[in-house]
């Protein structure tokens, strides 16, 4: 199979800028560059992890892809078909192929609907099946995500966090999507429950060839589930590569700091920690040059003035840094 046909989703120079109500000293409205020109592709059946500190634009990226929000500019295509400029009819079709699940399954589940109604809702919305057939398909989904049959008539509040996430996953899978954007799906769960849900997601992927965009600030979960990982900083991708390569030999100084900050559950590990100073400043005042230069320990003069290019540094390992 050639590389091209293997690509499920292609994102090119995606931007999402928010115009804030606050005005600058010059009377112009301030612009927040939540996502500021990112490009990547998702291969069929793979999991691409997206990591970065809160506010770096991960959720915005995910929502643009599944068309929950309108991008400011850029291209998104699913199996070669333009997702941004498509007609409303096509978008309705395309939406079935792309689902999103969120961190807090509780707030995204209607408390007055039973689990059966929640999981069957996509069928109702798209007028796909009804009556006995719908009930059977919903029960099959409930089985698949490891919930008991009697869940059908119960309400979300009767379930634990991990079980509610299973309900969210069952609903996302109802229409047999090709792509599932998972926005911090296990971040609110306890470790033992997190492991159950991660195993379930891997199993479902194996069964039906799903493609995941797995967004999380929890780096060990991302490492476990992803084949490739992209690292965002202030609305930009700074590095993207195969998981092993990215974790063992990061090319970008921000990735290096991020990796070294993960606390390891082994008291005998002694390692040099790269402590970053300060925190990420607002992306509505983009610093000139490299977005990371203010906190970078390798900073050179050029880093303050010139934005480093996003380049493939070999074998599909991308980074944007003047050092490389």
């Amino acid at each position: 199979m050639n590389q091209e046909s293997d690509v499920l989703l292609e994102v090119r120079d995606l931007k999402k800028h928010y115009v804030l109500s606050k005005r600058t000293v010059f009377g112009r409205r301030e612009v927040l560059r939540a996502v500021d020109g990112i490009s990547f592709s998702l291969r069929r059946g793979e999991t691409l992890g997206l990591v970065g500190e809160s506010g770096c634009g991960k959720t915005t990226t995910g929502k643009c892809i599944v068309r929950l929000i309108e991008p400011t500019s850029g291209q998104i295509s699913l199996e070669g078909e333009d997702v941004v400029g498509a007609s409303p009819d096509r978008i309705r079709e395309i939406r079935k192929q792309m689902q999103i699940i969120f961190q807090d399954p509780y707030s995204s589940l209607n408390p007055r609907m039973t689990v059966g109604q929640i999981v069957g809702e996509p069928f109702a919305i798209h007028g796909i099946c009804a009556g006995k057939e719908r009930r059977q398909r919903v029960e099959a989904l409930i089985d698949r995500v490891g919930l008991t049959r009697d869940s059908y008539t119960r309400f979300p509040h009767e379930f634990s966090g991990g079980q509610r996430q299973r309900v969210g996953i069952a609903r996302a899978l109802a229409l047999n999507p090709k792509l599932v954007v998972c926005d911090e799906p296990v971040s609110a769960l306890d470790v033992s429950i997190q492991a159950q849900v991660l195993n379930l997601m891997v199993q479902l992927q194996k069964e039906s060839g799903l493609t995941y965009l797995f967004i999380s600030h929890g780096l060990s979960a991302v490492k476990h589930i992803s084949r490739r990982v992209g690292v965002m900083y202030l609305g930009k991708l700074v590095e993207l590569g195969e998981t092993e390569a990215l974790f063992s030999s990061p090319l970008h100084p921000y990735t290096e700091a991020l990796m070294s900050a993960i606390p390891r559950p082994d008291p005998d590990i002694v390692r040099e920690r790269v402590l970053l100073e300060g925190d990420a400043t607002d992306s509505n005042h983009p610093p000139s040059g490299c977005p990371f230069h203010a906190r970078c320990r390798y900073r050179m003069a050029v880093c303050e003035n010139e934005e480093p290019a996003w380049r493939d540094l070999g074998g599909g390992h991308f980074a944007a840094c003047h050092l490389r």
Partner: protein
Amino acid sequence: MMYADDGAQPMAPLLEIENLRVTFDGEDGEVTAVNGVTLSVGQGETVALVGESGCGKSMTALSVLRLVPAPLGAIRGGSVRFAGEELLMKTVEQMQEIRGRDIAMIFQEPMTSLNPVFTCGDQIMEAITRHRVVSKREAREQAVEMLRLVGIPMPERRLYEYPHQLSGGMRQRVMIGMALCCAPKLLIADEPTTALDVTIQAQILDLLRTLKRKIGMAILLITHDLGIVAEVAERVVIMYAGEVVEEAPVRSLFKKPAHPYTRGLLGSVPKLDRKEEELKTIPGNVPSLKSMPSGCRFHPRCPNARSLCAKAAPALLEIGEGQRVACWLYGLPSDREGVETL
């Protein structure tokens, strides 16, 4: 046993919690959130209190300061001794003296202890003057010093800023500064970095380690992150469903975890240094307070459970140097009946 640096003198525990019981009045009657917890923290020692959400970590910590939310919650029994004195017998006024001066607490969300309508400077100065007689000028100087100590750049300027003007990491630093300004002997930190990004978390943990070295205070650190435990704790107490199930020096806990729950927890953390096809899991869910399993509370989820486990609750038993575990795998019940079923 804990020993001081010279290795000869046993250290007197600074904090001794014994058989603590905390209950809540609920719609369907009373539930027990903390069920006979016993743990201690030595002078200058860092102890991690670990467990999944709802297992009673925060209520145990709040009990030490007598801050269990009344009227629904109440301490129903046991003892909490600090430097040898029983805290459960103190008057409200005496407790106010102790809070902040001897024992300070920081929380996951700094805004729960910072007041949004006062500047950071006012709040730190208030914390300083609450327990000590100092002039306004001295208090201000000490506040600046404290902000500098916790790594806040331009501390003179920060004095005049409000909490909402600071980032999450900076707010957490201000709260730590406030907690430390009377040089408490014990700091209770309840998930202090859970809401922070990993690079900011690394800064705060580094700060706690540095401050501990400088001030020599003891820390009771509540966390659910085993990575954090490995990095900062000397001793670890594992809780499950309101009870202590294991206690061990940090190295023993990671190298030879004894309780099946501890093993399950360690197994379910995705490993960074190797590839696993499937994560180990603990089946099932944490039980609700309303329907606690009989016997060992972990038995319905335990891969090693035997019939005895559902019948009787195992007590904490010493199995090695400073390692104690509450599990029937490590000791037989005193009554003869159980021996055959094991």
